[in-house]
């Protein structure tokens, strides 16, 4: 009896402790993370240069309407989805095959895993700068070599196709390491009994892959696609540092940056942010469905 009372008072004490810390944390979090988004939603219906509040002009849905009418802005969305889609496609496919190779009975597995992961830990901005010095049309490394061989230089950064190619290339190069490790984790978690059962049934390698490994990786694949789709939505550094101001590779993140900090059109920048927010919420809800994050 006495101990039950003690435990109950202990529990009350703990709950008080929890709220004592959570309330200040909630206040801080609301101000830092939630309030700005609420502001952005309001500002997305206005025209404002970001300086004086009395200059805010209510424009209703005009920003959202213009977002899809304006060729340059709708082009940014198209570019983001196109390049993002291709980045995800190549990252997932290539990483899957590399992970399969690493699952073979090879020596130096740890070494290869380490080497393939290194691009993930370096600064995207510095790598982008390095690639730019490589493909710089006037005096970049590749063109210096081409000219040295007596060939015509290629305008890498001025051709829309090549520009997109390099941005996709850097992103895939940088994204593969993490995806490989996730695939490896998924592949090692496939129950050994399934393979043994398959062995007894005399399945070949190909059948094993299609009927045992792939179905077991479904959840991991969903996780990879969802998390990387968040990443490709905010692709920025390679575009800023390689494409500079060329519309052929403009992306949403660059557009928001430009609208807000170069054109001082906070209303439009906010509308773009809110539109992406809607996309992200949809993806996040999907994410909760497939990952371990359970509440």
């Amino acid at each position: 009896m006495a101990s039950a009372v003690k435990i109950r008072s202990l529990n009350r004490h703990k709950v008080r402790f929890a709220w004592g810390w959570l309330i200040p944390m909630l206040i801080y979090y609301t101000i830092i993370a939630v309030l700005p988004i609420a502001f952005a939603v309001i500002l997305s219906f206005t025209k404002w240069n970001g300086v004086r509040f009395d200059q805010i002009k209510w424009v209703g849905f005009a920003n959202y309407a213009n977002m899809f009418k304006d060729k340059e802005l709708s082009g940014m969305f198209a570019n983001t989805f196109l390049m993002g889609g291709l980045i995800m496609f190549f990252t997932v496919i290539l990483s899957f095959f590399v992970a399969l190779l690493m699952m073979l009975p090879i020596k130096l597995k740890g070494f290869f895993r380490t080497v393939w992961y290194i691009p993930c830990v370096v600064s995207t901005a510095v790598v982008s700068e390095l690639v730019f010095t490589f493909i710089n049309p006037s005096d970049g490394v590749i063109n210096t070599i081409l000219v040295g061989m007596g060939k015509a230089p290629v305008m890498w950064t001025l051709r829309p196709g090549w520009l997109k190619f390099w941005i996709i290339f850097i992103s895939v190069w940088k994204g593969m390491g993490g995806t490989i490790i996730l695939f490896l984790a998924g592949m090692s978690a496939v129950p050994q009994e399934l393979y043994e059962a398959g062995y007894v049934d005399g399945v070949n390698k190909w059948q094993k892959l299609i009927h045992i490994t792939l179905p077991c990786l479904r959840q991991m694949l969903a996780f990879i696609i969802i998390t990387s789709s968040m990443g490709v939505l905010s692709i920025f550094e390679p575009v800023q540092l390689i494409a500079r101001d060329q519309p052929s590779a403009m992306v949403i993140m660059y557009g928001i940056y430009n609208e807000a900090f170069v054109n001082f059109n906070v209303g439009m920048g906010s509308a773009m942010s809110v539109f992406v927010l809607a996309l992200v919420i949809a993806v996040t809800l999907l994410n909760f469905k497939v990952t371990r994050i359970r509440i």
Partner: protein
Amino acid sequence: MKRGIKSKADKILVPLAYLILALGGFVMLYPFIFSFMGSLLTKAEYLKISVLPVPGGLSVSRFANLLKFFQGKNVWTSIGMTLLRTLFYAFVNIFFGVLGGYIFAKIHFRGRKAVFFYFLMSMMMPGVVTLLPSYIMFVRWPLFGGNDIFGQGGSGMIGHWFILLFPGWFGAYHFFLVRQSIFDIGGEIGESAEIDGAGNLRTVFTIYFPLLRPVVAVMLIGLIIGHWNDYLFPMTFMRATDYPQIIPIGYTVFNIIAAAKGPTNSIPDYPAIFGICFTAMLPPIIVFLCLQKQFITGLTMGSVKG
């Protein structure tokens, strides 16, 4: 998959695997190899550069480009600020992360799910959504950086050193990782201490903290690498500043590169640029090579249960 006997298919596949993994591995390391070798060249040799530059000779002076990074303007104060910032964020993130994870794992109270969900909401917000909204809030922050009570007149926290330490004290992702680890540890470890009357904070940090070392390592690594490489945040929030000497290194390195490029229309000192890039990329790689195991744990921890 150790079966001892190699199947017929393996006989073809294994050598192929070695070939692809080695060639691909070379592509993965290429920018590092190239920028290292390229930095050893003289300016004249650069004009005859090849895909894999080989310096015309080896002498101590040729390695000077690798140190150009450390001779950049404001580089030491910038590195100092970056380290200070990392240290500060490591402390607050680990403190709140462990505390929050413990609260959400071990204490039952009404509204717990709602609060956890509220924190998690922000976890998946990519920079593309939050960049502009938070800029506007910080630039119009009342009574700061010359702003009046309505946030007018000055530039708020933008460009002020305070912005480098103010946002991001805790992340829902850390709560999630710690909570998961406490579930995985399981048992009633803390309980006996609580009955003995140890305070809650003491229970968390003397009993749980030592057991949470793996997840704390994961948090720490993420913060170190993230702060060293951080480019977008300083570029946006510290672009116009009265304190150029404390702009974090992820952006300062671009000022150093710009200085090596010289004025427009002049031929940039490419070997120097390669050297600066190589040295700037080195610290995260060293941290990674030393703490590989924790990196991999960290990557798989937050994903689906295999």
